[in-house]
């Protein structure tokens, strides 16, 4: 008879096999994300186009309101739609990933109470789903750049780093909120509020350069401000500048959010099935 692995579970002891389990269930990240993507566009007529329409329309509205009516300055000679969309992309990625991850545990309550697998997979795969949407809507940015003849320079190689920052911010916040949501459903109502509020305090519809210099550091306490500035810096060419201190501050806050979110999630994870 073949030798089988032995697993011992003891009350109150943290599991040593968590990372091994995560690895063993790695395909589940993919399957849960795949399910959510499949389900989202079932029984829709225009299907995946919805992933394009929403950011496109929001971009138009913002361009008209901030660029045309409020007449806020762009960065250098960058066309306003490109300025808005280069921020809209990371913002929508963060907002969708955060709200889906935050609600993910309750949405999958039946799985949580009936099957074992590392629960971390649930919010993480919600972030993956939003990443796919992000990739789809990036094509709009490519289209805009072609239309306006705007060419990004070498700094675009830094873009994946900022995408990673946005994902980390969304996962960190998502881990906190999803774990809290299991016990306190209040957070279901907090999520849309944060998302709506964040859209206005982050430099999505306008350039961070409109913020007075002495406030810039405080402004960067919002981690998404750093991410958005980074996106613009990487995409908009020489006309955009990056405030190093602000970027470091944002990165630090994101790392703290992610680490504390992970620890809190791990601590509460065992009681999910009991209280959900």
């Amino acid at each position, binding site marked *: *008879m073949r030798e*089988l*692995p*032995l*697993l*011992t*579970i*003891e*009350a*109150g002891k943290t599991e040593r096999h968590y990372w091994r389990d995560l690895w*063993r*269930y790695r*395909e*589940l990240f993919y*399957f*849960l994300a*795949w*399910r959510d993507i*499949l*389900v989202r566009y*079932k*029984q829709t007529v225009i299907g995946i186009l919805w992933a394009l329409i929403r950011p496109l329309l929001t971009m138009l509205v913002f361009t008209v309101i901030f660029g045309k009516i409020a007449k806020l300055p762009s960065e250098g000679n960058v066309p306003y739609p490109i300025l808005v969309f280069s921020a809209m992309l990371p913002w929508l990625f963060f907002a969708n990933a955060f709200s889906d991850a935050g609600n993910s545990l309750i949405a*999958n309550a*039946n*799985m*949580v*109470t*009936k*099957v*074992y*697998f590392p629960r971390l997979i649930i919010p993480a795969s919600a972030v993956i789903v939003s990443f796919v949407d992000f990739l789809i809507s990036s094509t709009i940015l490519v289209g805009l750049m072609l239309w306006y003849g705007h060419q990004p320079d070498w700094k675009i190689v830094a873009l994946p780093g900022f995408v990673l920052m946005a994902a980390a911010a969304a996962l960190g916040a998502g881990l906190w909120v999803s774990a809290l949501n299991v*016990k*306190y*459903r*209040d*957070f279901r109502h907090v999520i849309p509020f944060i998302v709506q509020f964040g859209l206005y305090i982050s430099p999505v519809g306008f350039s961070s350069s409109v913020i007075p210099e002495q406030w810039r550091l405080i402004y960067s306490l919002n981690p998404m401000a750093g991410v958005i500035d980074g996106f613009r810096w990487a995409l908009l060419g020489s006309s955009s500048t990056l405030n190093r201190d602000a970027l470091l501050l944002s990165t630090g806050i994101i790392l703290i959010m992610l680490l504390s979110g992970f620890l809190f999630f791990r601590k509460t994870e*065992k*009681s999910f*099935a*009991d*209280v959900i």
Partner: protein
Amino acid sequence: MTAAIVAEGLSKKYLISHQREVPYLALRDALARGIGNCLKAPLRPWLRRSPELIREDFWALSDVGFEIQQGDRVGIVGRNGAGKSTLLKILSRIVEPTSGRFSIRGRVASLLEVGTGFHAELTGRENIYLNGALLGMRKAEIRRKFDEIVQFAEVERFLDTPVKRYSSGMYVRLAFSVAAHLEPDILIVDEVLAVGDITFQKKCLGKMESVTGGGRTLLFVSHNMSTVASLCNRSIFLKDGRIAMDGPTDAVINEYFAFLDTACDLSDRADRKGTGEVRVTRISIRDQDGKPLNAIAPGQTIDVCLAFANTSGQALRGIRSMITIHNRQGQPIFSQHNQLSDTDYGVLPEQGEFICRIPRLPLNSAFYKLSYTISGFGESIVHDQLADAIEFKVAGSGFFPKARAPNNHYGQTLVDGYWRIGEPADESGKPTRPAEA
């Protein structure tokens, strides 16, 4: 032999709150309680005591320990709320025990519900992959077994139909089929076979038996004693979160029925229907001398007694009390009610027992379930109805004084018959030869 599962002192405590039901705790409540306590502290002597939430510990499982060898097929029996599901959830690592520890050897697959993670919008094909991954299968493994799964579930034609259009039978078959092809070292199954038609149930049982063939271990919870008896070589009887008995299945089932018979209190059954103005609180089966029966023999004369409480506060007339006996597959065998024998109870007292005398019980040796319906005048009002209120076992001999009853494969009801040889007869039944004088 090596042990597949070793459990020591497993306990699980839940906090239950009385007075009002809290579906989930809102942050507001937690904050309000916290802040309220701070504010109230200095004022306490002047404040009237407000009704507090009474919180109480409830031990769903206490100090459960056992050792299961590889290849064992273990049934877990017990009444509702005895802790069976909690035990399975702990062993499946879904919930953490409050105290105690367990070791488990090999890959575990648990089927606590049929079709966990099935998504109604997805097709059968998509759900096989999703469900398989959720139960811990690799993509390559699912692909390899895909045809086998589909064939077992008999859903070839509907593979690309969303499962929301499936009949419930197809749905269950597909869900079970995925799980049955997991090839785990330890399979944990909770009462999932209660669904699906009999043919498929049999197929599932066969699959489970073959799954547990090559040294695999099975843990099986069921209320269905005949399934447990046919599938498991060993059983654990849980009573109020503790192990009441652990041993060979036959012995455990006998003990379980003996226990059931003396305590089939129904007051905690929540699955009943009806107005509740009349409620059956307890069912017992007694012999004609009024002695509670542990074992019922075919052909025995029995009294089925339904103790009731009438809380309507009105003079209820024309009450009809009906019992139906089902076999374990849920098919009704017979029903009996008081109006068949033209019995009118008159005005129903506040308390009492409906007693149905069944002379010479015509049931063959097997397990049966009893359902009842208490209805009001003209059957238009159902006061109390409970399906599968109790389960009982008929075993032994006695219906035929001089012979053993036929095996229950030949039928579950027993009837009297008188046999003789007659003369050859033509089609109209007239003797072809004149009868000899």
